[in-house]
């Protein structure tokens, strides 16, 4: 178990600063997700925690001890890579045991016990004699996770572990990882993803990054209900939050008004706004109606069940008053 503390961490590659001063605390046993658009520095931040990249300035503390100069293997971490990064010439068993065989003081029996325990957790015991090339993508990623478990780390790092899997497998593996977090409640986990659904479903707390800076840290619901900026509001939640600016927003005493699709009602008349239906999507359980009403992007309304609106229909809509997010010109919320 370890808490991780980042104090004004900066990272520059040559003249390009990628991480521009990050302060963050990851609590013991917490599942922290770094999320953000590509190029925001989330993977770099993870690699700084792992020790694979050197910190340019600032301090990194594990359990209150500075680890800036500590080698990755000495930090008590294990890492799962996006591309699995298994050793192609070793069997699954050898892959999982490799780290332990390099550490001194583990007997063969102990290594075998630990590998088998991890293999049982991930149901890959029947594959222990195979080579990585004989496994499917999902199985390979499970082996990669198993290799990390075998090392019995204090901190578990995931670098977009699901991006190479197909959609169905991604959901299944996501659930595996969530279960893993529950069963290893004394292990701190840091997980990088660009997928906000993964972030929302897995995280105890989410850290939204943008251009090398922390935009907001909080529980998924905090971020969903009280986004600290237009950026976070737009990034968290699916479909994306609708933003309405200009005259319509002035009526709300704000520069920009944000309202989620699920917080808009279609009303028979006398709505706050009117719009023309340009497209509808029926997903069965819910459906989306896209409205053209003079905003930059069409406004999306999420309805339960199917709907019968057709392109060209004019509808009146009303946002739920207590769900309206108001932002000032700088993109900060007005509360």
């Amino acid at each position, binding site marked *: 178990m370890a808490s991780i503390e980042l104090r004004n961490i900066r990272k520059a590659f040559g003249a390009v600063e990628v991480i521009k001063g990050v302060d963050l605390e990851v609590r013991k046993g917490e599942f922290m997700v770094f999320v953000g658009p590509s190029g925001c520095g989330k993977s770099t931040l993870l690699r700084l925690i792992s020790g*694979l990249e050197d910190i340019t300035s600032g301090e990194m503390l594990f359990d209150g001890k500075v680890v800036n100069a500590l080698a*990755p293997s000495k930090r008590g971490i294990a890492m799962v890579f996006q591309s699995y*990064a*298994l*050793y*192609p010439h070793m069997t699954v068993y050898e892959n999982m045991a*490799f780290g332990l065989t390099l550490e001194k003081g583990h007997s063969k029996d102990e290594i075998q016990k630990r590998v088998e325990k991890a293999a049982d957790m991930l149901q890959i015991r029947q594959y222990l004699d195979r080579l990585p*090339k004989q496994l499917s993508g999902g199985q390979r990623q499970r082996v990669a996770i198993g290799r990390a478990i075998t090392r019995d780390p204090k901190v578990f790092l995931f670098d977009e572990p699901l991006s190479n899997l197909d959609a169905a497998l991604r959901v299944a593996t996501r659930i595996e990882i969530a279960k893993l977090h529950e069963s290893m409640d004394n292990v701190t986990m840091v997980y990088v993803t660009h997928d906000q659904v993964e972030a929302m479903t897995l995280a105890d707390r989410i850290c939204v990054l943008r251009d090398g800076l922390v935009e907001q840290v909080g529980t998924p619901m905090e971020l969903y209900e009280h986004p600290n900026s237009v950026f976070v509001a737009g990034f968290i939640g699916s479909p994306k939050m609708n933003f309405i600016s200009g005259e319509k927003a002035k009526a709300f005493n704000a520069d920009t008004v944000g309202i989620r699709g699920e917080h808009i009602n279609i009303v028979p008349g006398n709505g706050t706004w009117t719009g023309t239906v340009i497209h509808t999507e029926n997903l069965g359980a819910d459906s989306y109606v896209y409205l053209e009403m003079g905003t930059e992007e069409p406004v999306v309304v999420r309805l339960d069940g199917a709907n019968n609106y057709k392109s060209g229909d004019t509808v009146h809509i009303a946002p739920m008053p207590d769900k309206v997010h108001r932002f000032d010109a700088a993109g900060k919320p007005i509360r």
Partner: protein
Amino acid sequence: MGATIDLWKITKTVLFYALVVFIVVVSVFPFYYAILTSFKSGTDIFRITYWPVSFSFENYQAVFSQGSFPRNLLNSIFVASVTVILALFLAVTAAFALSRVRFRGRGFLLMVILAVSMFPQIAVLAGLFELVRAVRIGDWQMYNTPWALIFSYTIFTLPFTVWVLTTFMRDLPVEIEEAAIVDGASPWIIITRVFMPLMWPALVTTGLLAFIGAWNEFLFALTFTSSNDTRTVPVAIALLSGGSQYEIPWGIIMAASVIVTVPLVILVLIFQRKIVSGLTAGGVKG
């Protein structure tokens, strides 16, 4: 119409195979003729035949009973093997640094390595000779020992070997190395237990070429050794002499040449099965 197209097709096929046969004959004929000659004896040698007419091991017996040929053969094996081991060891470690360690002047260094391999042997012969003569440790001196050859062959093999292995290592997925770092592997462990098993094809290819180069080398071997006991086979063959200075023992020369070639053929046959591609399959998504 159909007939003319068929005719054209047949002509093309015939021309293609004629060319293949021509190339094979041109490249194989010298060696075939050497084998043929090596089994002839006496004056048969000077009669031109293209098919075996007589068969005798006389020349082979003569080679092994004459002077220091067996010793020369051992010298060749020793020099070539040690050169390969030394060159591969240096090249693999250098390739790791050149492909995976970021340092100033890396690109420049690579270019210099490539440039070095452009010098013809004869251009550096005098300088190398001085170097070899200068190396002495106590009573021992490098000149006229196999080590002089190993030293100079390694110098000439390294640029190519380093270059090929660097290119190959650069293509190995970085994540595999990083996974090994997280697992606590030192650079030495990464090289020996993670990279080398993945680099078999490149190691075998470069090793084989280094071996062949060292095995066939003549100029350095002639210059840096001076006694029958330290010579390697190519020089020994060139210096084989007959009963008088007017007689060139073609039969024995041919037998020796065949003997020298056989180990190379065997080596290639053994290792060609090791040269399999796609060894990294399955390690990373690809």
